[in-house]
């Protein structure tokens, strides 16, 4: 910049012009920015997948000796614009705990979301990430476990082949739901 002579400094009478310049300049930048932020916040208005009951298999597939059986959960998955039927969305461990009663535990560790393994010989669950161990009912076993809560138990229904809910049902349905990790309480993800 090589102006021949420095321009005179503006005086205070220019206040209105200055204010108008700042306000208009602000408005014209704010409009695209605000509209963009609205798009950015769009995910906040979308509800998480409601956890309806899904069929995960037959009762006969679960061992009678109380050992946990891992099964995949297939359900219609909505991924922004995609809707995919019968998509594996997670896994549960199923155990028979009494005649006509099945327990389902989400295979996701409540600490950091790692996949928990079942140790058949030791009858316990083990998380490979931070060595948490859980009992068959999901309770925390080792006192040093970093997990804030037991494994997440899910609601189970036994249904007859025609779909009616009955303790004699042969089809196992689970209300599949992931919960937010790292929290003391179960909060749907």
């Amino acid at each position, binding site marked *: *910049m*090589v*102006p*021949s*002579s*420095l*321009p*005179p*400094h*503006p005086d205070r009478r*220019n206040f209105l*012009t*200055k204010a*108008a*310049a700042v306000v*208009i*300049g602000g*408005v*014209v*930048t704010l*409009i*695209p*920015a605000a*509209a*963009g*932020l*609205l*798009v*950015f*916040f*769009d995910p906040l*208005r979308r509800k998480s997948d409601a956890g309806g009951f899904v069929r995960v298999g037959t009762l006969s597939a679960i061992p009678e000796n109380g050992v946990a059986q891992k099964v995949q959960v297939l359900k219609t998955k*909505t991924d*922004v*614009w*995609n*809707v*995919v039927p019968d998509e594996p969305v997670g896994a549960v461990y199923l155990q028979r705990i009494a005649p006509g009663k099945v327990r389902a535990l989400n295979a996701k560790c409540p600490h950091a979301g790692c996949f928990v393994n079942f140790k058949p010989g030791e009858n316990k669950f083990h998380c490979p990430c931070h060595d948490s161990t859980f009992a068959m009912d999901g309770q925390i076993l080792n006192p040093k476990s970093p997990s804030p809560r037991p494994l997440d138990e899910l609601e189970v229904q036994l249904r007859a082949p025609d779909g009616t809910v009955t303790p004699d049902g042969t089809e196992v349905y689970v209300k599949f739901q992931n919960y937010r990790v790292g929290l003391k309480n179960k909060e749907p993800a």
Partner: protein
Amino acid sequence: MKALLDWIDHRTGSKKLLHELLFENVPGGARWRYAWGSTLIFCFAIQVITGIFLWLAYSPSSQTAWESVYFIQHQMWGGWFVRGLHHYTAQAMTVLLALHLMQVVIDGAYKAPREINFWTGVLLLLLVLALSLTGYLLPWDQKGYGATAVATGIVGIVPGGGYLERLLIGASTYGHHTLTRFFALHAGIIPGAIIAFIVAHVYLFRRHGLTPKLPKKKPDAAFWPDQVFRDAVVCLAVLVVIVFFNIRSHGAGLDAPADPSEPYPARPEWYFLFLFQMLKLPIFKGHLGEIVGAMLVPAVVMAVVIAMPYIGRTVRGHRFNLGFLWASLGAMAALTYMAMNDDRNNPSFQADVQAAKRQAERVIALAGNGIPTTGAITLLRNDPLTQGPKIFALNCASCHRFDGHDGLGVVSKEAIKGADLKDFASREWLAGLLDPERVDSLHYFGGTKAKGGKMSKFVKDDVAGFDALQKAELVKGIAALSAEAGLKSQKAIDQRDDALILEGRKLLVGDSLTCVDCHEYRGVGDTSVAPDLTGYGSREWLIAFISDPSHPRFYGARNDRMPSFATEKILTPQEIGLVTDWIRREWYEPNKP
């Protein structure tokens, strides 16, 4: 606050920088005409802001690009508005660039020592046009795909251009890598270059100062606040225009997903139309002509523009520059007008545009239910309403008609050789078939071997002589037979007439109507003379019929000339299903508000 500013200033020299930015000398005081450059910076800022937010939701691949843009446009909060801002600001930028260039040439602002600044400006113009071109493809809709394919195809016609084209589109045909490359160019490489050149452009502009409009009316003044105020007001006006266009058209358009197997009336964006039209001129016909028109002419024009600072030194140079600029702009305007006028007066182009619009509306309605991972194009390919008429026109309409036309609305002058299948198997359709006046009309048997045949004789002799009771029975029989089809359009009346239909079923096998003398119906009678009426017009029946009308269940050896579309492998099972569903009017209807 002051302490903090001092602290920053001490370490960065921010005060001096701000002072330099704000107190630049404006020769002759602030003027509205000095604002054009600032509007371009402003437009670029809008593009960066809206572009980043669009980037946060965009997914560049051939199965997700259209889908993510659809989601932005039709599902996300304010998505259409942000996308529309981006779209219309791009157009505003092109217009403002032209104005800026005109102003620079008119004022002679390209003259020494401002040559390099002028050249950076010309480069910026080209970079912005490159942004337009790359951005046009990103939605991966028919429009962007068609137009961009033409542009990259032109690259391919010069010697060695094949390699260049392949490098540009990332493969031998358009696909994922075309999108990733165009996206990287559009959102990274080109904007980065633009920022670098804007910095150079503004630095050089500041170094040499404004080219004053002489004579100066007022004494020199500082940039701040008067000129800043004027710039802000002009930017506001630009934004108002952009927002006006955006709201008026509810954002930028989104055509059906790119499909190279579908015809589409491809046209470039309006500011490239002149190039498109130029290549249609007779002198640019042929391979060499195309190279000259698409490469050489624009290159010569650009070369002259780049040489303007030198041409301007000579005695009449400045006038030549002005004349050249006006002539070029005039030619562009004339070519653009010609292109638009040609299209406006071209009914087949207009029909194609309407068809493309319907296609776009249809796929957007279907996408509301979710899109399969194979992409939205699958929605259209599996949609009876979209595919049925096309399959019908191509395979059925050489004999049949649909409401008098070929399915796509074209009325053929050729003789009709088969029945008109609109509302096939509905009560109304069957009543016509069983009407002595109409059975041998072209609507039914008129063009077929069955004209004057057994069924035709039965209708014209027996039905014509029916007494009142038989006529009432016939109505019930028709209701029962039509109910076999289970048509969606008759669902309500079929339910209402439940009892009547039950009665009609008995009458169909009774002695009064004598249907089963020739036909089979629900296990009574046989099909050695005429087609099976069990499930008549149902999806299963119609698919089986189209698949093989010469099957004993239908016409057997008595078949006139209808091909066995499945057995002869003329149509795939999927295509037969689609045309069947279309004839039966079974397709997804979005809930209308």
